[in-house]
């Protein structure tokens, strides 16, 4: 396992998946956000019959179209990469993980791709009502696909509704509803989709303010700002709310991720939330006694409150999680990392014993092995861990990215409230400063979304499936060189595509709405 080539294979496989996911998440949130905003705009057109709303809708729809295709393209790669780069994973949990992906295709993608064609080419060919329905259905299709892929992602963070079957050497689904509606999935869905709405709203307000800045198409820009401003305000408040829900889920199911998000090494009953902090780069290991912070300003008790909904409440730190011994909520004592690793090895050994007994058709041994396996199954993945330190994710990355996401989230609420206030009470066309702020806020929306995914995905390392399968064991057995080559091909391809898209987008924006 730990030979040099293998580590580089795992790293390159992760790099390739991360690259695809990062690029995918550049395009998808804008698709989700613009889909809602153009549907709202077209509804206004349908209701009022005013031609300028049709032109407004069509302008944003054009930008939607430019953005859409790359989201689809990177999504295709992402889906197939589960097979190409995470072969073990695909078998070990494919029985659960495959279903949402298939449902996504059957239920959501077809809806999206059918009605997007009507939406773009049907203006003169179908009735106004059917066209409006198609615009909504395109957005609903995109949102449904987000539902299913986030169900799949949430399941990796918090595997539920399955049992391990040693005969087939995999986890098998036992409760579909538990998988499809786990609280982790529900929170993740609303949090991610609504962050897409925020981005869409930032994009529309930013671009509209550019028109104001250039003193052209003012009426169009102001009406776009109204629609997007309200969408953005509602969405950013909801994002904060679902973010709190997601945080609670992480505290319950992935305490190590939470500890890394807060750089909390030693837990307490009255844990404060770090409002602002600078980490000490000299901190190398959890138990080296080095103070993790150079500077730390906290909101007292807040972390306990967010994580457990009460004060005082114990929030375990990284050292507590590694050393165990603290009392869990069900009254039992937390196991140390070493004990978990021990039990994981027992589970894997029992699995091997079971397979051996099964080929020899030795019923008694099979039964014994199955019993040991069941007892230790919750720790199965720990059996592959060589050293407890591997269980700690990259703390600085998770810590800082979490702060970037949260602070920007707060800023967006402030931004949209200010913008709406000014647009209703003052003359936006003359306020250069807010126009500039709106334009500069567009990239911040992208940054916040990416930072959120870094927290979610890097914060759960070393797990590809929490407690069950470490990333290193999930990987396809390829030579690192092949994966490295495809990584650079994708990097080049995606970057060219992105550059082309940005240029096309800028030109299309410059053209402005139809006159």
């Amino acid at each position, binding site marked *: *396992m730990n030979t040099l080539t293998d580590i580089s294979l795992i790293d390159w496989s992760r790099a390739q998946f991360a690259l695809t996911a990062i690029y995918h998440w550049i395009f998808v949130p804008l698709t989700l956000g613009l889909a809602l905003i153009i549907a709202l705009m077209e509804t206004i057109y349908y209701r009022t019959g005013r031609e300028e709303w049709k032109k407004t809708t069509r302008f944003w729809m054009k930008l939607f*179209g*430019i953005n*859409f*295709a*790359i989201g689809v*393209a*990177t999504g*295709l*790669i992402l889906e197939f990469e589960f*097979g*190409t780069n995470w*072969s*073990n994973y*695909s*078998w070990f949990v*494919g*029985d*659960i993980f*495959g*279903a949402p*992906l*298939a*449902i996504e*295709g*059957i*239920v959501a*993608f*077809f809806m999206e*791709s*059918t009605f*997007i*064609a*009507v939406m773009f080419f*049907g203006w*003169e*060919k*179908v009735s106004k009502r059917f066209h409006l329905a*198609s615009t909504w259905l395109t957005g609903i299709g995109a949102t449904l696909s987000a539902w299913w892929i986030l169900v799949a992602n949430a399941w990796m963070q918090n595997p539920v509704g399955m049992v391990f079957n040693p005969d087939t*050497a995999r986890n*098998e*689904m036992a409760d*579909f509803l538990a998988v499809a509606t786990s609280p982790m999935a529900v929170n993740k869905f609303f949090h991610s989709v609504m962050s897409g709405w925020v981005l869409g709203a930032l994009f529309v307000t930013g671009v509209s303010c550019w028109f104001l800045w250039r003193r052209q198409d003012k009426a169009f820009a102001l009406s776009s700002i109204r629609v997007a401003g309200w969408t953005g305000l509602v969405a950013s408040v909801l994002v904060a709310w679902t973010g709190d829900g997601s945080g609670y889920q992480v505290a319950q199911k992935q305490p190590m991720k939470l500890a890394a998000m807060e750089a909390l090494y030693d837990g307490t009953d009255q844990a404060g939330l770090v409002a602002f902090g600078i980490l000490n780069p000299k901190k190398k290991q959890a138990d080296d006694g080095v103070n993790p912070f150079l500077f730390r300003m906290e909101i007292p008790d807040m972390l306990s409150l967010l994580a457990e909904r009460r004060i005082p409440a114990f929030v375990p730190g990284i050292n507590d999680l590694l050393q165990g011994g603290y009392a869990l909520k069900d009254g039992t004592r937390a196991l140390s990392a070493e004990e978990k690793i021990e039990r994981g090895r027992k589970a*894997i050994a029992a699995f*091997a014993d079971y*397979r051996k007994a099964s080929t020899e058709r030795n019923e008694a041994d099979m039964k014994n092995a199955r019993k040991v396996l069941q007892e230790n199954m919750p720790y199965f993945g720990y059996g*592959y861990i060589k050293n407890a330190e591997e269980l700690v994710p990259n703390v600085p990355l998770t810590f800082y990215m979490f702060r970037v996401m949260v602070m920007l989230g707060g800023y967006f609420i402030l931004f949209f409230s200010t913008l709406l206030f000014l647009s209703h009470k003052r003359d936006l066309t003359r306020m250069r400063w807010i126009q500039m702020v709106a334009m500069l806020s567009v990239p911040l929306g992208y940054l916040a979304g990416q930072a959120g995914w870094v927290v979610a995905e890097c914060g759960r390392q070393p797990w590809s499936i929490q407690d069950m399968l470490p990333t290193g064991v999930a990987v*396809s*057995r*390829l030579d690192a060189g*092949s994966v490295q080559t*495809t990584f650079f091909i994708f990097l080049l*391809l995606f970057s*060219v*595509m992105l550059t*082309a898209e940005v*240029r*096309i987008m800028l*030109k299309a924006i410059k053209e402005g709405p*139809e006159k």
Partner: protein
Amino acid sequence: MYTCLQQYWWFIISLLGGILVFLLFVQGGNSLLFCIGKTETERRMMVNSTGRKWEFTFTTLVTFGGAFFASFPLFYSTSFGGAYWLWMLILLTFVLQAVSYEFQSRAGNLLGRTAYRGFLVLNGVAGPILLGVAVAMFFTGAEFRVDKANMADMSMPVISQWTNGWHGLEALAVWKNVLLGLAVFFLARVNGALYFINNIDNTALAVRCRRALWANAAIFLLLFAGWMIALLLSDGYAIVPSAGTILQQPYKYATNLQEMPWIAALILTGALAILTGILRTLLRPSYEHGIWWTGTGTVTAVTGLLLVAGYNNTAYYPSVYDCQNSLTLANSCSSLFTLRVMTYVSLLIPFVLAYIAYAWHSIDRKKINDEEMKEGGEHY
């Protein structure tokens, strides 16, 4: 019950495969872009004609992958993780295609219109050939081994592993694979030409499509006949149900057709329908509905072919490394529970097809013509 669901899901996979090969008319049509389209307007009409359908091909490819993952995950992990380069090449050509429609006529597109159209042609040629090669491996097999007990091997927990370093590229050196790849490619061109005849209102273009049809149809029929003969003469891997072992069996696929005459009938009907569509179009210059015949025929024949690969105790993904490692419906499928859930989901498919047909119909009511290309509306 479990066996029934496995068979049902193999049918769904085969059907999706059939629909996918039919929808490759988008690729086939694009491969004809520079052969048939002489003027800019003509090329523009062609691109817009396939451009309103490419999403379906793409989505079917994704759904084919997703459904395969959900119903036969061991195939997903073995083939995709093993034949890495083959699948990666397929994906790359489809990714290039996805952006090419939207970007080609836009100002500021970085590479210029010709490059994006070049990508469409590249995908149009390489996509069907490589997919055909990948599908041919259902019959010709591949070099891999599978051992589920390896999850307990702490030094190297690998379930599926390719046993050669070419990771799928070696399949391009097997003549039978290439034969099927080319057959799929020329079938896609036939379907593409017939689709243009039906979808675009332009006499000059229609005449050239008909002219192209002659050669492409002839080559397709020869390749397809060759493939069928090769298949009937091929050995296959048979499952011995009592022992659970896998044996190499001469003329396995011919035997399958003999023992499952309804599948033979399916393939034959499909082939005849394709032939009818081609002949009626070639013989009657005013006939425009050839695509309906060849389309239906393609779905039927390809579905039948894929069924032959998996039904009647046949290993559908033979391992030439060790035939006991071959993938069968039973050893690679999802659990009973998951197959059952997915079966409920599959009941939605007719509903999905119905709204696709409705939406498709409402856009295609009027053919594409050069007038439309000059108007200000949305087009590529």
